[in-house]
């Protein structure tokens, strides 16, 4: 499960309480894809998630202006968005605190009877 899913997801926090296994794999860089994706992101959530995984590196905490032409920046986003993957860990809802486990890269978002 890569970080890309997070910003779409209502849950924006990766819980550090569980053992977390992260993997970085290579995905083909597509600047067009990244620059069009950025407006759809909740930037602070992305930064927070990356940070929580220890993969913030030099990703700026504030979205820079004119990023479309900035390949360097786009590559940083690409990395965090598509290449950093959580294999084992937990997603936590910031509002309810409810935790959703991630196994083998797959988050289990099924709700219990009471929650549904």
């Amino acid at each position, binding site marked *: 499960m890569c970080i*890309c*899913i997070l910003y779409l997801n209502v849950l924006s926090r990766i819980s550090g309480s569980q053992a977390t296994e992260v993997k970085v*794999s290579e995905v083909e860089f597509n600047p067009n894809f990244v620059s069009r994706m950025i407006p*759809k992101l909740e930037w602070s959530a992305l930064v927070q998630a990356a940070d929580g995984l220890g993969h913030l590196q030099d990703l700026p905490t504030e979205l820079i202006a004119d990023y479309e032409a900035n390949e360097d920046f786009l590559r940083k986003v690409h990395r965090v968005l598509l290449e950093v993957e959580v294999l084992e860990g937990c997603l936590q809802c910031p509002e309810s605190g409810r935790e959703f486990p991630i196994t083998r890269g*797959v988050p289990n978002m*099924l*709700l219990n009877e009471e929650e549904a």
Partner: protein
Amino acid sequence: MSSQDSSDGQQCPLVVVGETGFQVSDEVYTVTIGATVPTGFENTAAEEVQEKIGANAKISKDRGRIYFQITTDKLSQVHHLRSVDNLFVVVEEYDNYQFKDSKEETLEDLQKLASKLPWSDALKVWNMNTTLKKKRGPHRQPQGPRGRGRGKANKVTLETDTMQTETIETDTVVTDTVVTDTVETDAIDTVETLTTQEEELELEAPTADQGEGAGGVRTPALEILGEQQEVPGQELGAKVLKFRVTCNRAGDKHSFSSNEAARDFGGAVQELFQWKADMTKFDIEVLLNIHNVEMVIGIALTEESLHRRNITHFGPTTLRSTLCYGMLRLCKPQASDVILDPMCGTGAIPLEGAIEWQQAFYLAGDNNDMAVSRTVNNICHIQKKRRDKGSISGLPIDTVQWDLCHLPMRTSSVDIIITDMPFGKRMGSRKNNWDLYPSCLKEMARVTRPGSGKAVILTQDKKCFQKAISRMGGLWRKHHTVWVNVGGLHAGVFLLKRTLGIFGQIAEDSREGKESKPHEEKPGEERKKE
């Protein structure tokens, strides 16, 4: 249509030269290629041919076949087509073949026809094609003890309808676009093992959804028992080719059956070339396709259907990849589109998308443990394949386990929903669909972007679906429908457009028709609002 060939009258057995048996020339000439495609997606396939090969395809309406011409130097390109199930080179086409009234006379005609056909160009193409495949094989796989390019043995676990697990050892050789993969076994499909003269060991399940067309009967060729004879002029060591004839016949006015046609035509072909007939281990498959007064004779260029190319871990209802491709083409993924399959099963659709339209991002989800597991396995398999080829292996796809009526997605965050909804025959039930379809459509409407969002939905339960849609005019608008054949069942692929209506503000989205009851806020749901 005119005959393709400027026949130089090669009537007698072709001189067998070299290993594959035919002289290869360097000249470039034009041939007609035929392709079988999922019925209903002929136009999509024609588009792809135009796009990737630059040829105008002629469509055999409603019969799942398209034809186009190429020059022989472009032959390898046809194997990059993702909308076609099988490919063949046309030997001869007849628009209006006059079948005689009696069976005896008709069959006699067919026998005589064999030696009159312009075989040589088509056979050269077949030969070229065989050479192409051999070239691709050895590069991909480590050399095994059994000779050229045999792949490593893999253990693959197949899971069937009854949830029994069966482990089969296979050799898989991965070529450019064709994944020789294992196959599901369930109550409906049967498994046939084919061994070809090349390195590959393949398992193929002929399923009912071969797209053969109205009333066509696919019959295995009749094996003709006879002594193998040496061909005059055959060089020592050159092997005799094995062949079979497959006949598809459709139409009311024929006096013969496809079996008979295959048998008699096959007999004449054998006489002509002195090939050996073999139903399972053949080098050359001759196709005899008859549809009323149209007849096409061809030679197959694909050994097994390309339709299962991406999937190694099957489930009971896995869609063939060519159908997935057709559906994806319908929705035309754009850069940065977020594409969701909320009932992904084995992940066939989003996986095909992630391979072919990499500028979008795919989310594959299912509530079922097995389905999620299979999806992950299929994705991993493809990524490994890519790594082995030296490509970047990562794909823009993620898998989630979720409840499709409670998608963990922000409202209006999805661009395209593409899915295969349960048919009620192999999975789920008709009764369930009456409840399921409306809830699905509502939740899908919530997450999809108003105005620009789309949905491409395959379902066999058309009545239930149409009814559910008709009650959702405020959120979904029917744009286009493609009628297809899936596993012998008539299904529809519905292309829907998301209206501009905001979810939660439109009357048509109230639950179960109880308009008066206000939508209850629950802690879990509150966060779904923007």
